[in-house]
């Protein structure tokens, strides 16, 4: 992916379409020069975020997810747009992984993996309704690169 080119994918909000979304993120991130482990992290983060939108946002009703992927200022950004009720996954409390599993409070497994795979996640409610979630992964500099 060169410069500020943005790639776009529009899919029905169905879990059966997540493979398509992952392939889209993987090919965009590969082209942007992310290292393989970082590509896998970003794919995981976007999958968990989009699955959350389908399960908790659309709650089984018909809808769509619009995904934009672009490289900008040494970062790979994937933006997910939906048309469901306002839902901010970044506000979900983080499980404390320093506590042994048997003493933890339940909740937030997918959101935890979303955060763990990203360097930053931003949410905003769009003025015309729906949500915009931006998942960012920094592209590590290659040796000799400016």
């Amino acid at each position, binding site marked *: 992916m060169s410069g500020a080119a943005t790639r776009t994918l529009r899919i029905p909000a169905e879990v059966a379409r*997540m493979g398509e979304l992952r392939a889209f993120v993987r090919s965009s991130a590969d082209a942007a020069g992310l290292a393989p482990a970082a590509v896998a992290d970003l794919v995981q983060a976007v999958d968990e975020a989009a699955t959350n939108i389908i*399960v908790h946002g659309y709650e089984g009703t018909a809808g769509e997810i619009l995904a934009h992927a672009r490289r900008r200022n040494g970062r790979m950004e994937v933006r997910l747009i939906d048309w469901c009720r306002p839902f901010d996954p970044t506000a979900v409390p983080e499980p404390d992984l320093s506590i042994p*599993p048997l003493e*933890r409070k339940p909740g937030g497994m997918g959101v935890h*993996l979303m955060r763990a795979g990203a360097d930053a996640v931003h949410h905003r409610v769009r003025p015309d309704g729906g949500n915009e979630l931006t998942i960012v992964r920094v592209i590590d500099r290659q040796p000799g690169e400016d």
Partner: protein
Amino acid sequence: MPMTIDTEHVAGSPQIAVISLIGELDASNFELLVANVRQAYDDGARGLVLELTELTFMASSGLVALYSAVRIMRGEAPPDPEAGWGALHEMAEDHDPDAAPAVRLAGLQPPVDRVLERTGLKRLFDSRPTRADAIESIQGT
């Protein structure tokens, strides 16, 4: 569907089912894995090897399927798939290594391994490098 599931039975004591996952385990197919484990148990398997060498991705829903597999091989009902982290929480509570069910993960790849590590659940699943190691660890030599 982005995943193929192959089941093979290995004779011996106990009888083992080797279920190979090829592709990506996610919210669209984790219940299919649970159904395959249930079928293997109903067919007489009392040991289970999940061969994950060709599993390239696992979503958080896959953790629920792994937990369900452990429950089924213990002869218990699988949890409600909607229970999510709560189900795994419950698993951690009744985790007793001495009474570990005969379930092994074989051939874990880095992306899947990271999911187990990051959720703090890796220690709950007995993992072996290869399918042969996993079978031997259940049936002995």
